């Protein structure tokens, strides 16, 4: 089941971003999707529709310099800069209570937002992301973080290499149109943003203990979905999310990789819709 997904735009913190929306448009309680790297609002189209059909207001947007969205001059490409953008977008949309759905780098961004707005976090869905105590960067991130080498790597990445490199690490291969769209969005701006973002994040697991200390006592409802064969963020972290979200329902998908919503879309949709059904009435009610 899927509701019509409406595409429009949103001006938040000086960034005009693409907006995907479904469900009751003015509800103050909403499911908010935050994509990772490389990713865009398009990653969420199916799930936005599914959450909308379940009666929820659902929104997804490009992060600045991802997807088709251009960041304004002076935008800070750091987890904190992106978290601030997220706060501004939610404010602009009139969303007061959020069910965050986070993937990959959307994890740190969403969790930093949650640290600053703990009362606004109604629940959380973590897809191959979350608190990462003790995590050290995967090899690709280490390349991005190395000056000159990172630039060189970004400069020589072409469509063929991108497709090959990505699928090499995926257990089932990703749908070609999904990979192509990701590459289409992986333009010069995004490539530069990625370098800045990763270079601004020396210790991806650094905040984990603080987050756990802050979030665990609040007993926030949570769903964790993790592709078992994630080559970037190991699935051994899936159950660790229960340290921050003790009641989390954890699903490690045995045949999936880093993008379960692309290689197991039905399963992810089912789990999300069931979770939304569990955490209470949609905004409209």
């Amino acid at each position, binding site marked *: 089941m899927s509701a019509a997904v409406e595409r429009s735009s949103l001006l938040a913190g000086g960034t005009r971003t693409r907006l995907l929306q479904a469900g009751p448009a003015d509800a103050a309680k909403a499911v908010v999707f935050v994509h990772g790297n490389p990713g865009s609002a398009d990653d969420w189209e199916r799930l936005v529709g599914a959450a909308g059909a379940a009666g929820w207001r659902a929104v997804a947007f490009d992060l600045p310099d991802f997807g088709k969205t251009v960041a304004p001059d002076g935008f800070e490409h750091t987890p904190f800069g992106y978290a601030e953008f997220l706060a501004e977008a939610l404010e602009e949309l009139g969303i007061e209570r959020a069910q965050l759905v986070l993937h990959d780098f959307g994890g740190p961004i969403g969790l930093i937002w949650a640290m600053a707005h703990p009362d606004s976090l109604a629940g959380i869905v973590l897809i191959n992301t979350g608190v990462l105590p003790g995590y050290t960067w995967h090899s690709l991130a280490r390349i991005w973080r190395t000056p000159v080498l990172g630039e060189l790597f970004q400069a020589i990445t072409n469509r063929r290499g991108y497709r090959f490199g990505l699928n090499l690490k995926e257990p089932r291969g990703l749908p070609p149109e999904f990979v192509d769209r990701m590459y289409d969005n992986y333009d010069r701006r995004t490539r530069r943003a990625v370098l800045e973002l990763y270079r601004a994040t020396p210790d991806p697991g650094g905040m984990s203990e603080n987050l756990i200390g802050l979030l665990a006592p609040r007993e926030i409802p949570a769903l964790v979905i993790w592709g*078992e064969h994630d080559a970037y963020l190991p699935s051994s972290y899936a159950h660790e999310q229960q340290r921050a979200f003790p009641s989390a329902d954890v699903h*490690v998908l*045995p045949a999936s990789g880093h993008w379960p919503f692309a290689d197991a879309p039905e399963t992810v949709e089912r789990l999300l819709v069931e979770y939304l059904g569990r955490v209470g009435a949609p905004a409209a009610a």
Partner: protein
Amino acid sequence: MPHTDSPYDAVIVGASLAGCAAAIQLGRAGHRVALVEKQPDPQAYKRTCSHFIQASGVPAIERLGLLEPIEAAGGQRPRVHAWTEWGWVEAPPEQASRGINLRREVLDPLVRSTAATTPGVETMLGWSAERLLQEGGSFAGVAVRNPEGEERDLRARLTIGADGRDSRIAELSQVPVKTSPNARFAYGAYFEGAAPAHAPDASVWFLDPQWAAAFPTDENLTFYAAMPTKQRLPEFKRDPEGALVKFLADVPEAPPIREGRRVGPVLGKIDMTNRMRRPTAPGLALIGDAALAADPLFGVGCGWAFQSAEWLSDAVLPALGGEQPLGKGLDRYRRRHAKELRGHAFFMHDYSKGRRFRPGERMLFAAAARDEKSAVIMDTFATRQIGPAQMFPRMMPRAIAVNTRHALAR
């Protein structure tokens, strides 16, 4: 002094599938057989078992005259559909081999009552093996005991251990054993309600390295099984049913386990160490799991129980008939056992390590998912009707051709 009976031709310890199959065959050939079982209940059955019988075991069952009664009791004749990341491996229906699915609760009493009513077979339920009897450097029967403390010496020309993976007879006889670790554990349960997509065929998921299966069986029940690697054990220990349902419901093209209702307990087996024993010693033979307890993941235990019982009976009948020394028959059995099963066991035990597929395995599975003829060869191998030595030469060239064609077509 314990009571001593006049000697039997064979004493069999363990009246489960292998033991009963051997008793039926030896009894029908006119021999006097003692069939000893420590469970006193004639309706006893093995609980932790996926009950799937590979197609390789069907001829032996047919020969015992058990196939028709099994089908009459509700036994299914499933083909196997195997999910891989390259798609389903499924031989065309008319060429796919069929195994048997019948709950052990039904199968075991059926096989045991057939054995018990076979002329020449004396069934002794509630007796357990205490020690082996010896005579002139050879085993010569077994001393048994019942719960009342009564002891009997059952002297026999041939002692057969059919008492499972933790075989007492194997332990007493001190035959050499090779073990290899199993990195997986197993949980499973019967469910009623919605049937899985390929029913009555069986579905298995090779999730590399995780594994799951759905076996539709009699009474419209389905046995769901999960064999994950041990890192998943904590969630299963915490909530066995919840974890089992979640595991099956999250596989690609998942079966409708959540729409079903569990009947009977959730069964678990944590230690599935592979055990391979030398199946013979002077005057003694091991059959079934006692000889080779292979990884349950491949569903071979029940079928091999019937097959090894058949190989043993065929091999020793001339000797029991007085035509040749027993040692010769036992040698023949040991060679047959090795020839039929050693190759399979080698690859199974290697896969028990919980590792991901090796490149060669990826190539074979991919070809089998893409090409019908490869799927038929794979099916014949996976249902254990041919060994690796027959499978590889047929499969390899084809797999290379199929995968090359696939790569070029893209």
